[in-house]
C-alpha cells in the first residue's frame, strides 16, 4: 500500500525567513502522527503548505500518489485532506447544523443539500452537539465550537485529518472527552496528524511522533524514544537542560 501522504524536501520562504526547510515525511494509512515543536517551529505553516493555503517554494507534496503541491485548499478538501483551524473559523451567522452541512455538501460531496443536512445532523449528534444544532455558531462556547469544528471535518469524509491544536483552551475533563472522540475517528480508519502542545494527548494517542524545530524535522519515531532524544529536549528546554537530562539518564542506566 503506497503512502497516503508523502512530503519530499518541502520548503516555504516568506521573503528572507525560511519558515519550513527541507521537510521530508511520509504518513501511512491508519497512522496517528503527533506533530510537535515549540511555538514558531512552523507547524501551522507546514499544515498550510499541505492543504494549499500557502504555495510551497520548494519540494513536493504527494497525496495517494498524486502530486498535489500546488493544489488549492478546496481541491485538498475534496480529495479527503481536511484540517481544523487553530483559531476556529465558523460561519458566524449560520447555525451549527448549517456549518457542518457546508462540510458535508462540498468536501463530503453529498448528493443534495437535504442529504448533506442529514449527514451533518448525524455528525453533530456524534460529537454531542445535537441539542445546539439550530443555534448560531457564534454563540457556542469554546469547547462546543471545537466540537463543531470536529463535526464539520468528519462531515467532509476525510481520508487524512490534520487536527491543528484542536484541544487548545480546553480543561482536562473536556480534553478527555475530546480524546475519546478522536479515538473514535481513528477507529473508523481516518489517518490523523495531531498538531499539539499537550504531551498527555500526544503520548496517549500517537503511533508515531515527528518533531519540528525552526522549520526543520529534527526527530521522527515512536513516542517513547523521541521524547528522550536530546535534540528534542534541547529544542524545547534549551541546551543546558538537555545536557543535565542526558547526564541524569546515563547515571541511572
Amino acid at each position, binding site marked *: 500500500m503506497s503512502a497516503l501522504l508523502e512530503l519530499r524536501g518541502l520548503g516555504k520562504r516568506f521573503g528572507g525567513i525560511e519558515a519550513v526547510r527541507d521537510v521530508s515525511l511520509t504518513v501511512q494509512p491508519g497512522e496517528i502522527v503527533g506533530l510537535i515543536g515549540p511555538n514558531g517551529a512552523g507547524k501551522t505553516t507546514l499544515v498550510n503548505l499541505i*492543504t494549499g493555503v500557502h504555495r510551497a517554494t520548494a519540494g513536493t507534496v504527494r497525496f495517494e500518489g498524486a502530486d498535489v503541491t500546488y493544489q488549492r485548499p478546496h481541491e485538498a478538501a*475534496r480529495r479527503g485532506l481536511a*484540517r481544523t483551524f487553530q483559531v476556529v*473559523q465558523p460561519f458566524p451567522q449560520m447555525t451549527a447544523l448549517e456549518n457542518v452541512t457546508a*462540510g458535508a455538501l*462540498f468536501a463530503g460531496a453529498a448528493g443534495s443539500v437535504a442529504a448533506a443536512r442529514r449527514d451533518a445532523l448525524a455528525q453533530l449528534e456524534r460529537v454531542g452537539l445535537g441539542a445546539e444544532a439550530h443555534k448560531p455558531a457564534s454563540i457556542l462556547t469554546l469547547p462546543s465550537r471545537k466540537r463543531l469544528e470536529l463535526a464539520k471535518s468528519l462531515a467532509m469524509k476525510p481520508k487524512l485529518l490534520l487536527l491543528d491544536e484542536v484541544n487548545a483552551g480546553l480543561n482536562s475533563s473536556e480534553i478527555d472527552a475530546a480524546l475519546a472522540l478522536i479515538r473514535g475517528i481513528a477507529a473508523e480508519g481516518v489517518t490523523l496528524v495531531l498538531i499539539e502542545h499537550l504531551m498527555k494527548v500526544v503520548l496517549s494517542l500517537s503511533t508515531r511522533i515527528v518533531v519540528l524545530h525552526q522549520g526543520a524535522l529534527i526527530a521522527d519515531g515512536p513516542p517513547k524514544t523521541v521524547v528522550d532524544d536530546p535534540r528534542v529536549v534541547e529544542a524545547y528546554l534549551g541546551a543546558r537542560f538537555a545536557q543535565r537530562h542526558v547526564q541524569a539518564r546515563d547515571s541511572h542506566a
Partner: protein
Amino acid sequence: MRAWTLPVLAAWIAVLAATPFVGDNYLVKIATFVAFYAALALSWNFIGGLAGYPSFATAAFVGLGSYAGALVQNAGAPIVVAWIAAAGVCAMAAAALGAIVLRLRGHYFAIGSIALVEILSLVASWWSGLTGGGEGLNLAFLPGGPDTIARVFLYAMLGIAVLALVTTVAVTRGRLGFGLRCIAQNEDAAEMVGIPTTRYKMAAFVLSAVFCGAAGAAYASWVAYIAPSDAFSILLTVKVPVMVLLGGAGTVLGPVLGATALVLLEETVWARFLEFHQAILGAVIVALIFFLPGGLLGLAARRRTA
C-alpha cells in the same frame, strides 16, 4: 425561504401582468419599470446579497446589454434574439471583467466595480465607428400602436424578471446558493470546506450580469435610442443596491419588494415635492440605513420573532 414568499411573488406577478387591463398606459409603463428594476435588483442579489460582494457594476452590464442588443437588432435580428445575444455578451464580459475585479474584496471591489461603469461608458463614447459615440445609436421604430407596444415591453420585462426570480429560487435552494452564503460569511473557511470560491464568485458575477444584459437590450428596443451617458448611469448603479437593501439582501422576496417600493416611492414623492424630491429620496436612504437594517423583510422577521 419563508412559507409565504411564493404566494406573494405570484401575487406580485399577477398584479403587474394585470395592469394593461385595469389601468392606462402610464400605469403599464410604471409596472414595466417595476419589473425592469426588479430584474436588476434580483441580478445584483446574486453577487451583492448572496456572495456579500458589494457590486456597483449593474449599470455597466445594463449599458453593455443596451449596446449589444441595439447592434444585433440593427443588424436585422428580431428583438428577442437581440436580447438573448445581449445577455450572452454580458455573460462573457462578466466572466472576463470578473477575473479582474473578483480578486479584490470589500472597498476595493466596490471601487473596482464602479470603475467598470465609467470605463464602458468611455469606450462607448470613444468607439464612435461602432456605437455612434456621443451622438448615440438609433434603433428601429417598432410597428404597433401604443397599447400593443406597452404590453409587449411590460411582458418582456416581466418575463426577464421572472427568469431572474426562478434562477434566484433555484440558486438559493441549491448548492451554489449555500456556497455563496458561506463565502459571504467567511471566504477562507468556505475554501477550506471544499467550496471552489473563485468559480462560485464568478458564477454569481455572471448571473448578476446576464439578466441585466437582457433587460438593457429590451430597454434599448423600447426607447429606440441610446447614448453613453444615459446607458451607463451612475445613479442607477447605486440605486439598485439601495433597492435590495430596502427590501432585504440575500432573500428571494427582498429585491422584488425593494424595487417595487422604491419605484412607487419615487412616483409618489416625485409627483408631490417638485423642488426637493432628490433630497427626500436621500433622506429615505439615510432612514433606511438606521431604521431598517434588515430591509422591509428584516422588519417582518423582527416582528415575527419579537
